[in-house]
């Protein structure tokens, strides 16, 4: 879930940017090291970023009849590892801001933290945990993508609640309000994302 351009107060926008920049720098550094041994991965990640962007721009059929926007970073984290997803996720988020007006430049830092860092890490961790628990691949992939999406949306809700605490109830009330209202769209989206990721991984496994 993207926080729109300009919505965060200046201090928060700058703060999240300051948080995101070193994480991005580390991701870039790590990927550069990786590319030295696997130079062909540069093209691969560029094309993969395009695929993730495309999935996010498509109108996918959803159970509720509305359209959903999966992020595709859960899938990417499973395929390429969470650290590679920081630069790739950054590129996807920047393109979403510049080509679709989803999210924005001032909110890019906050969105990178929720969607290119927290989401992939949770997806990857959930997949590892599910696989270690002996769940089937299908279940593990679904759980990973679903939880990655949910974690993203919970993080975004927390970011919004921190920036805009409720006058009476403070952070907690505000967080519950944001999480509650966006659950209407984000829970079906997380389910769609999980389902699509399962379908993609199963299809890929057969090739």
């Amino acid at each position, binding site marked *: 879930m993207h*926080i*729109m*351009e*300009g*919505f965060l*107060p*200046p201090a928060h926008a700058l703060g999240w940017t300051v948080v995101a920049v070193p994480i991005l*720098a580390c991701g*870039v550094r790590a990927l*550069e090291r990786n590319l030295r041994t696997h*130079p*062909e991965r*540069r*093209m*691969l990640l*560029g*094309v*993969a*970023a*395009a*695929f993730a*962007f*495309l999935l996010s*721009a498509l109108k*996918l*059929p959803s159970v509720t*009849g509305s359209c959903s926007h999966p992020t595709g970073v859960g*899938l990417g984290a499973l395929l390429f590892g969470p650290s590679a997803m920081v*630069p*790739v996720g*950054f*590129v*996807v988020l920047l*393109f979403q*801001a*510049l*080509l679709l*007006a*989803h999210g*924005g*430049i*001032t909110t890019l830092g906050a969105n990178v933290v929720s969607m290119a860092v927290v989401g992939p890490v949770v997806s990857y961790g959930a997949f590892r945990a599910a696989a270690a628990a002996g769940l089937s691949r299908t279940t593990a992939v679904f759980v990973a993508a679903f939880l990655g999406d949910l974690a993203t949306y919970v993080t975004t809700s927390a970011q*919004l609640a921190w920036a805009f605490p*409720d*006058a*009476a*109830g403070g952070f907690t*009330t*505000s967080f519950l309000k*944001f999480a509650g*209202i966006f659950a209407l769209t984000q829970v079906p989206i997380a389910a769609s994302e999980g*389902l*699509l990721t*399962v*379908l*993609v991984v*199963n*299809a*890929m496994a057969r*090739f």
Partner: protein
Amino acid sequence: MRIDSAAYASRWRDVAPAAKAQFALAGALAAWIAQGHAMLACIAAAQVAVTLLGARVSPRTYLATAMPPLGFLLVSCLNMLAAPAADGTWHWASASLPAIARTALRSAAVLASLLGLVLTTPLPHLLALLRDLHVPELLLDLMALCYRTVFVLRQAWDEGVTAQSARLGYGDWRRAWRSTGLLAGQMAVQVWERAGALQAAAAARADDGRLRFLPTAFPHARRDQAMALAAGAVLLALAIGEHL
């Protein structure tokens, strides 16, 4: 990809991207500095007017592009206005209305600044600007590849959906999901094939591991930037003047 088409069709397409970025930045800064509702509305209106009247972006395109973020804004603001009372009932927190209105207007002004930039500037020009700003080469490489490939994959996706429709693949939502899954899986496999083909094509042109291209030249860059600085300074002066 409405924004991409609008940017290439824009009258200001060949204006130096640095100039347009400076004006957008000035709009965003002014919106951050300004306090009053009227001033914020003025900044938003100025950005919209410049985009629609100056760059002649079609109002339809503008509206269609602005709708999704404005939807987010509406939901979020209504959400902030609704407040639970101690007894569990909900009421409108009218006391916080001015603060929420300021947030909404500020968002609208910054959004209008961004739209003014992206609706008039083809993305390759923005990437050239990022290169000038010393964004790491790896990110620029990924962006260049991503941009080109998005359109190739999108065409492939559209053709795939058309071919599946011809075989009744989208009759109901169960079939639609099955077809979408098959197509996404097939295209995920293509990601590897296409990357391999591009790698070979780059190697055939003496690729040395970096994707470098000729920077696009903007003949009136100085003039464009001077005008953008002047216009941006007016916005900033208005916003700062409010505090004096």
